[in-house]
C-alpha cells in the first residue's frame, strides 16, 4: 500500500531543537539544582539523554537522568497490540525534585496522563514539566507541553514517526499520509 512520506525535520533540525529546549529548561528553571530528567521509553530515553548532555554543556554540571515506562499505567491495555514493557530507572528519590518528562511525540495526551500517574506512585516531585520533540495536536485530555521542538499541525489520519540514531540509525521526523 503506497503511502506518501515526507521528512519534516532532519538531523540538524533535531539537534537545534534539542539544544534550544536545553537552554529553555535552564533559563526557566533558573539553574539545574534538584532537576531530574526522565525519558519515556522508547524514543524519549535517547532524547532525554541528549537534552541532559546539552544541559551539562551549558551549565557544566550533570543532571540525574532516568527513564519512566508507562506501559503498566495505560488505560487501553485491552485495545492495542501489546508492546514490550520498557525500563523504569529512577536515579534519585523524586520527592521535592523538579522533574522534566521527555517524549518524542505529543498527540492525544494519554501517554502523559499515564506518566503522571506513574510518577505519583514513585514520589512527590515539587514540579513536573513536559518536553517533547514534536507536538502534533489532537489532544484528548487537558495536557500541554512546556517545551516543544516543533509544532506540527497534522490530520488525525496522518502518522508522525520519529527516527533517532540510537535506535533507528538516523535522525529524522517523518509525516506519512494515507494513500
Amino acid at each position, binding site marked *: 500500500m503506497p503511502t506518501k512520506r515526507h521528512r519534516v525535520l532532519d538531523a540538524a533540525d533535531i539537534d537545534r531543537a534539542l539544544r534550544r529546549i536545553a537552554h529553555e529548561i535552564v533559563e526557566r528553571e533558573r539553574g539545574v539544582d534538584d532537576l531530574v530528567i526522565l525519558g519515556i521509553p522508547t524514543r524519549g530515553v535517547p532524547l532525554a539523554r541528549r537534552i541532559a548532555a546539552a544541559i551539562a554543556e551549558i551549565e557544566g554540571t550533570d543532571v540525574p537522568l532516568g527513564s519512566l515506562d508507562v506501559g*503498566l499505567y495505560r488505560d487501553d491495555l*485491552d*485495545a492495542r497490540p*501489546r508492546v514490550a*514493557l520498557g525500563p523504569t530507572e529512577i536515579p534519585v528519590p523524586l520527592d521535592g525534585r523538579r522533574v522534566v518528562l521527555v517524549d518524542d511525540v505529543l498527540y492525544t495526551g494519554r501517554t502523559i496522563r499515564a506518566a503522571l*500517574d506513574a510518577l505519583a*506512585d*514513585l514520589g512527590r516531585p515539587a514540579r513536573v514539566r513536559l518536553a517533547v520533540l514534536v507536538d502534533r495536536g489532537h489532544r484528548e485530555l487537558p495536557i500541554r507541553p512546556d517545551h516543544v521542538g516543533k509544532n506540527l499541525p497534522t490530520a488525525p489520519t496522518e502518522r508522525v514517526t520519529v527516527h533517532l540514531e540510537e535506535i533507528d540509525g538516523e535522525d529524522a521526523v517523518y509525516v506519512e499520509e494515507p494513500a
Partner: protein
Amino acid sequence: MKSFLDSEQLDRPTLERLLDDADRFREVLERPIAKVPTLRGKTVATLFFEPSTRTRLSFERAAKALSADTMSFSPGTSSLSKGESLKDTVQTIAAMGADLLVVRHRSVGAPARVAAWTGLPVVNGGDGAHQHPTQGLLDALTIRRALGRVEGLRVAIVGDIAHSRVARSGVFTLATLGAQVVLVAPRTLLPVSVEGWPCEVTTDFDEVLETLDVVYLLRVQTERGGATVFPSVREYLRRYGMTRQRFARLGPDAVVLHPGPMNRGVEIEAAVADDPRALVLEQVTNGVAARMSVLYHLLGSPEHA
C-alpha cells in the same frame, strides 16, 4: 497465549518476552509503592484443590501488585466436601465473575479441563506430577538474573524426577531457552517417559559436578512416595544431596536452586542453604514477578479482550 497450561507450549520468543517483562515487574516489586494499576477491575481466582500455601500466596501477591482483585478457594471449606463435581465448582466460580483461574489439582490435565469448561484463561498452578509451568518460568528468571543468560549453561536437576512436576517444567523451559539440562537421579526415581525429554541423564552426581553452572535440587517428596527407595536420609544425602564437599567442588560462579520448602540435611546441607550462592529466597521473589508477567500477558493481551 490464551492459557498457560504447560511448559512445552511456549516457544523461545514467547518465553523470552515473559522473562523480559518479569524483569520489569521485579523493578516494580522494589518500589516504595510496589503496586501498579494495570489489571484494575480484573478478578483472579485461585482454585487450589491440593494444599499449597506458598504458590497460592505468590499468585495472590502477583495479582494484587497488578491491582487485580482475588478470590480464593480451598477444598476443605467448600462444597466439594458436599459432593459437588469439579466441573460444577469451577463453573460456579466462573459465574461469579472471575476473569482468570489459577488451578492446582492432583490430577494430570485438570487445569486444561477447567479451561475447556469455563472458556476462561487458566494458569496451571501444578497438576499431579505433570507440570508446574510458572515454576519453570521463575527458575529460568532466577538463573538469567544471576548469571546473565540461560543459553549454553549446564544445569543439573537432582533428585526425585519421577514425582516432580517442577523437574518436568524445568527441563522443557530451560531446554527451550538453550540450556543443556542433565538429570541426576537413581534409575528408580526417573519417569519412564524421560527418553523423550530434551536432556541428558546420569545416576552419578559426582561425575558431572564440576561441569555445572547451576544445580537444581528437588525436594524429597515423602508425601508423593519419593525417597522410599532410599534406606535412609543419610544415604540420600551421601549420593544425591548438596553437601559442603560437593558445593566446594562447583565452579566459583555456580549457583544452587531449590523450589522450597527445603529439607535441610536431606537434599541440601544447612551450610549450603545459607550460602549467598543458594538462590532460594531470590526464587521466591522472582516467583511473584514471573507470575505477574503471566497474568499480564493473559489478561492484557488483545485476544482476551
